[in-house]
């Protein structure tokens, strides 16, 4: 187990270098001069642009830029944005808020998704099951921004139960509404995954055996059915944590949350190499760790899976 974990962690090193090199190259290849574009229709004096390009090493070839970045990276310097702010400061502000939002959304979708999915799976074909299917289909087919605008309008503007946008401190109660929006689509997937998995497992041999052994229904469902049904759900949650961290651009925009998605989007539009790459590097690490956690959880959930040396 430790050997396995160590091996997986070591794999992160090439992934890190590969991902940063690739992303840096992609940002570098974006068309247009990012510095000239900063000034819009009113270009500054020609000498000004050249000096600023030199300040951000944009006048050097790609590979030199990349190695300057990596060299500074390992000295703890992530570079600066085009507005002169250290990228590390930007990250220190964006990641905690996004992490809170993502974890809250993950908790909501996991708890309610599994609960609804389990009940639906157990009562296949009944009214609850049919309604769960219809609702989840609806959530999957309606775009997030529609759900976001509707919930914001109804709960914040009309009813006044929540704040329309999230304030700078971003306390959990203000994040609840955005987290619900963010969780909505994944919730629907989890309901469907859990339901299918539960209804499959209800007919599995080991469940029949458990029932035949005379175990209580509660124990059969709780230990044998649910635990085994969670394997696909956990896989989904692991991947989803990553996308919730980075893919919340729409939700962040609607609720004016200054998080990772919006920051990266803005940085890509500006062609801000160091910002994009630093953020992506952290995301890569999060993705890899989340996947590792999922793989380790498999072993805990399904007794048939063991990681040997």
């Amino acid at each position, binding site marked *: 187990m430790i050997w396995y974990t160590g091996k997986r962690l070591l794999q992160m090193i090439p992934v890190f270098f590969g991902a940063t090199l690739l992303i840096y190259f992609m940002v570098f290849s974006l*068309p247009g001069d990012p510095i000239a574009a900063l000034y819009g229709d009113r270009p500054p004096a020609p000498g000004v642009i050249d000096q600023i390009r030199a300040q951000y090493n944009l006048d050097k070839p790609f590979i030199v830029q990349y190695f300057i970045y990596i060299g500074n990276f390992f000295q703890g310097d992530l570079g600066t944005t085009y507005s002169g702010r250290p990228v590390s400061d930007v990250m220190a502000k964006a990641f905690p808020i996004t992490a809170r939002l993502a974890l809250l959304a993950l908790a909501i979708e996991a708890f309610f998704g599994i609960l609804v999915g389990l009940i639906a799976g157990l009562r296949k074909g009944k009214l609850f099951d049919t309604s769960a299917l219809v609702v989840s289909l609806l959530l999957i087919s309606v775009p997030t921004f529609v759900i976001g605008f509707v919930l914001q309008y109804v709960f914040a503007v009309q009813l006044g139960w929540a704040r329309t946008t999230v304030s700078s401190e971003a306390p959990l109660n203000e994040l609840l509404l955005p987290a619900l929006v963010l969780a909505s689509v994944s919730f629907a997937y989890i309901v469907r995954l859990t339901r299918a998995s539960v209804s499959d497992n209800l007919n599995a041999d080991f469940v029949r055996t458990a029932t035949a052994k005379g175990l209580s229904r509660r124990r059969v469902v709780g230990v044998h059915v649910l635990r085994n049904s969670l394997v696909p759900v956990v896989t989904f949650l692991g991947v989803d944590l990553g996308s919730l961290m980075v893919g919340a651009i729409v939700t962040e925009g609607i609720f004016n949350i200054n998080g990772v998605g919006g920051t990266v989007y803005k940085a890509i539009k500006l062609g801000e190499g160091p910002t994009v790459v630093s953020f992506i590097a952290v995301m890569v690490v999060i993705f890899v760790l989340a996947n590792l956690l999922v793989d380790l959880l498999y072993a805990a959930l399904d007794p048939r899976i063991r990681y040997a040396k």
Partner: protein
Amino acid sequence: MLSGCASGDATPAEGDTAAIITTNGSEPQNPLIPTNTTETGGGKIATSIFAGLVSYNAKGETENEVAKSIESDDAQNWTVTLNDGWEFTNGEAVTANSFVDAWNFGAKFSNAQSASYFFDDIVGFDYEADSELTGLKVVDDSTFTVELASPEADWPLRLGYTAFMPLPSAAYDDMEAFGEDPIGNGPYMLAKKGAWEHEVKMDLVTNPDYDGVRKPANGGLTFVFYASMDAAYADVQGGNLDVLDAVPDAAFESYESDFPERFVNQPAAIFQGFNMPYYLEHWSGEEGKLRRAAISMSIDRKEITDVIFQGTRTPATDFTSPVIDGYSDSLKGAEVLEYNPEEAKAKWAEADKIAPYTGTFDLAYNSDGGHAAWVDAVTNSIKNTLGIEAIGKPYPTFAAALDDRAADKLTGGTRAGWQGDYPSLYNFLAPLYQTGAGSNYEDYTSPEFDALLKKGAAASSVEDATAKYQEAQEVLLADLPTIPLWYSNVTGVWSESVEGVVFGWDSVPLYSDITKSE
């Protein structure tokens, strides 16, 4: 609301003088150094924190702030006298040196300030090396003189622009750090050190020592930074934001009913059009002139502004803006900006006699700026009138579009726009159409236009100057280096708790006049 109207009561509501007004902003692009703040996000904060020689009222007229007088006999040598008693919020007196040193800092080549070109008409300015502005001379603490390279009658008009603000001597120790926590002499000041919460908001409170023409009727200002105007709009609806100065596209249809009597929709100092480069075949010389006029007359501006923009744009009748003093809707040749399909077809046919048109007409724009809808409408209008293939040509980002534009690699027209820096006709003409000017990307050149512009600048009175600038515009109407489309309107809404929201010439509310009651 209704009772208020019926009674006809004109007395303004008593506002709470300690109340903080919240309004939308966007993260300033750079630390708030006046000479490096040329975008609107930083601009509206900087003008709240600093007071220059003059400031602008709602009509765009200048009113003296720190200046007691700005005088000249020949429009070339100016003497600026300052009022006594002005102080920065750190207690330092505002003197002639506060201006002269700040302008020298802004103009210095190696400081790479984005507004450096604003000083290029002062004697001593150099675009390629560090050089002192020798045209600026301090006479005593409250007087300095300015020598311009050539006469400019409307030079004082620009002095309310951010680039011309004074700086305290403490700024020069570490300019970057100063920009994080700027110390000014304006109506507002930072609520505390570190009041600028990056990407989130900036808190300002009133400056108790300020005694200029913009004395605040409220207790302070909080600029909340929004990535999307939709979120800001929802915040005004939800009561989290007092004043919004830009209604998002999505709310164009509903803002008038969402905020009855609490909205504004008026032309702003923003000119929009599209340029046809002169290096393209068919678009220069006599043939080009005919084609430009034909294209211009084939666009139904009225219908596009009504349908696509829901009346939040005003069809153009010149090259400036209705909020600028000297604007005219009846320039000679302005009929070329009216929709006239017959005349358009006739001119196009005439041009075809010189050289038959081949290929597709395309119009470049950046697809990340919400331009697709109107570009399609314009190209459709051209296509339907002239019977040629006309399409929009999207670039993924502004940077990509600018690259091809700056490198003279366009294959057709390009979206172009200008927001006035200061309320003057000159500012809408010189940077864009003068030979070799910074924003004259399409390399328009007309000796006649240049001469008129020069005459206007050197005119002894503003009336004379305006007449020359209008003549210069008539040259543009004949040549059409840019096809004017419309002026962007300022659209704003505000909550029930605030009153006295008036928008200035620059589309920014006059914050100091806003009152708020609970």
